[in-house]
């Protein structure tokens, strides 16, 4: 009993009161593109990028592909690229995830009145890892821990697709998981939504070129929310989903 009390005391108060305002120290987040000229015919960033996230003329980074590895930063001879600790990377539109020098911010998450009305006070999600490396999976678990405590908003992960309002997809969708993903999606009752978590789910990420993937699921179903990152930081997940559902907090 005394040990229990001692552990409880040491625990203190752990929850982050302002999840939208929290800034993770040291996090390598949203890329920043300086408005300077590229060196002549330089393709250094393009060739180092592991996930084809960069296009040139003008330089643009697709956060749906970017794994935030930061390797383009030292590769650039013109010092055009850097990374901030901004975790607000979510968008409701796939095209909204592209940043350029002129367009430094991704499209803000569009609050859906319908989703707010239906799920604003309770959203139950089923997770499917379809080739995830256990990075996004562990971060998704972390959203429910005592620090992030996403459950305070009625947003929880559930065990059965029959209990779920939506599906959180992680991983690039392997051919060997494609069928199980379809079955799980079909088992979730309408109305339902998909959230694409991490660069792998959004675009295939570093595995996009693999012939062991089958991404046809995303041709049938369009995600309601894209959550970039590799893995997606819990604060990216939380701020994105609170914005989508129009939850003040």
């Amino acid at each position, binding site marked *: 009993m005394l*040990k*229990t009390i*001692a*552990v*409880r005391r*040491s*625990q203190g108060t*752990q929850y982050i009161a302002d999840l939208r305002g929290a800034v*993770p*120290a*040291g*996090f*390598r987040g949203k890329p920043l593109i300086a408005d300077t000229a590229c060196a002549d015919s330089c393709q*250094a960033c393009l*060739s*180092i990028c*592991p*996930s084809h996230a960069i296009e040139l003329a003008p330089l643009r980074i697709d956060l749906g592909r970017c794994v*935030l*590895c*930061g*390797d383009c930063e*030292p*590769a650039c001879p013109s010092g055009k690229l850097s990374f901030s600790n901004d975790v607000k990377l979510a968008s409701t539109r796939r095209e909204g995830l592209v940043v350029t020098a002129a367009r430094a911010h991704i499209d803000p998450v569009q609050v859906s009145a319908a989703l707010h009305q239906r799920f604003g006070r309770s959203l139950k999600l089923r*997770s*499917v*890892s379809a*080739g*995830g*490396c*256990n990075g996004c*999976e*562990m971060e*998704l*678990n*972390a959203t429910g*821990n*005592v*620090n992030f405590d996403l459950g305070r908003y009625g947003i929880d*992960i559930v*065990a*059965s697709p029959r209990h779920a309002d939506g599906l959180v997809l992680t*991983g*690039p969708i392997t*051919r*060997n*998981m*494609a*069928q*199980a993903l379809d079955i799980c999606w079909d088992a979730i009752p309408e109305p339902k939504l998909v959230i694409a978590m991490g660069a*792998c789910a959004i675009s295939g990420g*570093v*595995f996009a*070129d*693999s012939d062991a*993937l*089958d991404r046809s699921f995303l041709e049938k179903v369009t995600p309601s929310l894209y959550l970039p990152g*590799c*893995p997606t*930081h819990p604060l990216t997940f939380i701020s994105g989903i609170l914005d989508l559902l129009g939850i003040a907090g």
Partner: protein
Amino acid sequence: MSLTIPKPSPCALFSGQALQPLPLNDFAALCLQRLQQGERLLSLFGRAATPADAGDWVLTAVFLPPEGALYVVRGQARRGEHYPSLSASHPAAQIHERELWEQTGVVPEGHPWLKPVRFEGERQQHMADYPFFTVRGNEVHEVGVGPIHASVIEPGHFRFMCHGERVIHLEIQLGYQHRGAQALLLRRPAWSLTPIIESIAGDSAVAYAWAHCQAMEALSGRPVSADTAQSRAVGLEMERIAMHVATLNGLATDIAYLQAAATYGRLRTAIINASQRVCGNRFGRGWLRPGWARSLPTELRDDLRKTLQGFARDIHEVNGLMRSARSVKARFVGTGVLSPQAALDMGLAGVVARASGVALDLRKRLPGAYEHAPIATVTAPTGDCWARMDLRMREIDASVTWLLEALARAPGEQAAARAPAAPEGENAALAARTLCVSLVEGTRGPVLQAIETSDSGGLLHHQVQDPSLANWFGLALAVRDNGISDFPICNKSFDLSYCGNDL
């Protein structure tokens, strides 16, 4: 270019005569001889033959003798060629022979259970066609679980053959996570592979990246400084602590001991957030690149030490609570026993083997960066869920002690703030016709990577192997004769990697 590596080293180079392939039967006979001498088969893999090679495949077997350096045996084979299976007399070879057969079509004659490991290539999407092992009897029934499991976890299928609630046999079917990672590694410039390597098993990013960088550095004759190696070891021990705490969190959750689970949850947060302050990522991504690692200046060392001191105090308290709670003992003691003999026979490695009394830790056996700052090897004799829990607690303590000492030393030469740009042209050259075997003792056990170069110094083959590959069968053995309701705690106490197995 100098290719000398100080011994004892977790990284070995082979070239010239050492790479000459033997005919398949001679290869198998030599492998058998080494196994009979008590050497450990670490890996067995094939790569497609080049025009200069005979046959369709060149085979490599990597052995770790009880003492001395790593050793490789090379063979050549045609597709569909047969050889006498090593597994028939040495079960430790079973998973390696299955993988080799799946990838090359070379058949181990007499293998007791020739099943695809990950249903790759032409077998993709044919997992449902596989005939599971069946147990016959009037009251025997089967329980199938997965690939999608109840919690947020990677996919895999477990097929239990039960009598009542007692598990007679468990067949584990993996491969759902197969992303074709190894093939991808040959399609990009060799010096820019680390972000992909970090994504193969994202919870072991530092161990994977280190094994890869170590191989690239050896093949290019550019050993890193002691300070760079120390920074990597700091990253690796932080990763080990974080992952062991994640397992303890899972074990507490699986027996509904919520207070301990909540405490482990926030303690892991403290460690991974500290890693993020070093390298920008909670999973250690970007901590190291070929030839480079994050520098640890005085203020960062003080920050890490302060974090670890607070962590050490609190984890000691919650571990004490776990160890003394009767409900924890009732669930874990004597549950999921894996005997020391079984662990040895099956070639198991890492935490799982050490919890069954096998004192193998590469940080001691092939110390490399740990040579001048040894870390304690921890073992437990009982091989049950309790042993695997307790071992993790003690490995956390050993890592914290090691880190506090390492971080108390004055920082040495500081690395550049940013990773160097990938070398180009002549600077990017690797030793030609060379095989490098590189090992790092990650959280789960030895992470192996083997890189073979072509005549022109390009990548010919990049083998990646997670310690989970061999260890999954240990889980199948451990649950025999246990209640099926104890499977979750058995599984969590092993805490193996799905994506690391499936690649």
